[in-house]
């Protein structure tokens, strides 16, 4: 099962290496990873997807918290977090399936990100299962290429911003 961690870290050299190493060290593979600075440019938010059992997830949570550059670790449970992903699909207008594909895209409310001569790129974001369906539709209509992000997570509660470790 996919588990999503939302991790606040110091925006510094080596932090990504420390975290990547930690996963590899425990023989866990990072399925997807999204990183960007928060409103505080000294702090970055990493959203990390892993496919692990409960024991592995707990282990990772504990180990992540031990890294000194890690300020907080949250497990993004469905009840508490909005989790969304994004995918892009590129399709040729010469494609016989193009018209049918565009029809499907309307159902997804996917937007045209780019349109040029013989190519169109569609963008869709939503929960993982919907993104999977979006990509499946693309593949079924002989799309040229597909690319997707990992998860992006936000707590639903209004007052949760950060709970950075003391002294960090």
């Amino acid at each position, binding site marked *: 099962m996919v588990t999503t961690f939302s991790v606040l870290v110091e925006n510094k050299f080596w932090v990504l290496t420390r975290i990547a190493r930690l996963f590899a060290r425990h023989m866990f593979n990072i399925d997807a990873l999204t990183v960007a600075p928060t409103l505080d440019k000294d702090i970055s938010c990493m959203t990390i997807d892993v496919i692990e059992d409960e024991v592995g997830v707990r*282990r990772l949570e*504990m180990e992540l918290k031990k890294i000194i550059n890690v300020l907080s670790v949250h497990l993004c449970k469905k009840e508490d977090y909005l989790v969304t992903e994004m995918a892009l699909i590129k399709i040729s207008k010469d494609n016989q399936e193009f018209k049918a594909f565009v029809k499907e895209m309307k159902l997804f409310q996917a937007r045209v990100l780019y349109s040029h001569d013989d190519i169109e790129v569609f963008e869709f974001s939503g929960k993982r299962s919907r993104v999977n369906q979006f990509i499946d539709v693309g593949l079924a209509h002989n799309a040229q290429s597909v690319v997707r992000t990992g998860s992006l997570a936000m707590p639903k509660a209004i007052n949760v911003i950060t709970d950075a470790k003391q002294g960090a």
Partner: protein
Amino acid sequence: MDKFTGADIVLKVLEKHGVDCIFGYPGGTMLPLYDALYQHPKIKHYLVRHEQGAVHMAEGYARTTGKVGVVFVTSGPGATNTVTGLANAKLDSVPVLVITAQVVQSLIGTDGFQEADVVGITIAATKHNDLIREKDELEKAVTDAMYYALEGRPGPILLDIPKDVLMTDVEYKDLSVRKVEKQVDGGDFADAARALCEAKRPVCYFGGGIINADASKELKAIVDKLNIPATGTLMGLGAISGIDPHNIGMPGMHGTYTANTAIHQSDCILAAGVRFDDRVTGKLEEFAPHAKIVHVDVDDSEIHKIRNVEWPLVGDAKPVLKKLKKEIDSYLAEGHVDREKLMSNWWADVNGWLKKNPLKYNPNKKIIKPQSVIEEVYTQSKGDLIVTTDVGQHQMWSAQFFPVHEPREWLSSGGLGTMGFGLPAGIGAQIGRPDKQAVVFVGDGSFQMTMQEMALLMGNEVPLKVVILNNSSLGMVRQWQDLFHDKRFSETDISISPDFMKIADAYGVKSRRVEKSMDLADGVKEMLKEKEAFLLEVIVDKDEHVYPMVPSGGAAHQMILHPDD
């Protein structure tokens, strides 16, 4: 505010933290720091002969004093040579701070002379490390490093400081020392106390965490109150005295029959400052199969890591055990259980095992048995020594036959099993505790890994006693070859070795070689009487094995006993 060079700032912060000695080795990149050191006579520097030795010395110093051991080394090879020491300190949770010089920032990443990606190389071998790029961050980085080394679960910290940062003038802010808070993080103390009080076959299994937390007194208070058998791991020896009537010896691969059997039959274990290492548990499925477990640990990533436990008590062992004791007292005061009756049956069993299968060997009038050397040193010194060991058979015999009396008076490489640890760690221990004699037990193989550090024994500054148990082989590997590889002694014969008497002589250290049993007592006496450093080489039986033994992956209660049993 006053301005100082980065190098001065490093030393000022270290001085402020009470650092009075440093183990290290200079080099081109490190010159600014050594130049500044020249002007800080309050800090004594010990010049090692290899950087690995510097880290082991710092570990020895840290383990005996409880303070952070500090190391200075230069960039490139100076830094990479510390990796084994760092990994050792990481696995055994020893607070050390290694400061490595780095090439000037304009050369970083260019494969400059003596440039290595030290932070990248040591991420996995440290609790934390950092490259200090901004001169203004230096003072805080060193202050934080001293804190992180000791905070929570102690460990090694490395700071990589480019030469330009060391040379640039910067304001000294006089930041205050960060105090390490010793606190209880959580757990169901009342229920854990009830379980321990009601247990019919309780065992206390304690480890290095008790030593790090200076929680021996608190642990002993519980063991005494509940009157339960206690077994200490290699890292925990001395936390409860080896001659305490509750102490049933070490558990695990070369532990006592009694300790392993008691754990196997136990219904409730107080696991204090331990991490259920495979050398203790043996085959995990058969480790303490009937026991519910109260696990005390400062590092919550250790909870449920190897063994699922019923009562995790997380926090520094000292306040945690204090709180647990209070709960135990109040539960017992309610008079629910008749402790005396509960314990009399259990102790009858335990005492029966102690009597049936004690640690044993067959003394020999001709060939010296290695165990007898350890026993002789123990008897003559009345155990009043700081004992350091290297890694191998002699390490296990030392753990078995030298019952350590006090915490912080036993040093060994536990987790990493680093050959070459003994001599430098012993030097660091003796420097940390000049008031007490330190002795190193070392094998002829281990000794040759770091014997260049004998140079620190010159000039009578460090009156360390070194006992080489020479069996002309890599004994522990040879034992496995004998037992599990049909006596194919592949590359474990080291009979072609230097003359250790000449080595001692070359370093100006007094020495004696003992080859006959009849001379052993006199040799040990001469060593212990000597005020200066001394090297005692004892030629021992190379066919002697360490027993009992749990074969790798075997169940701990099904150990191989001494062939005579």
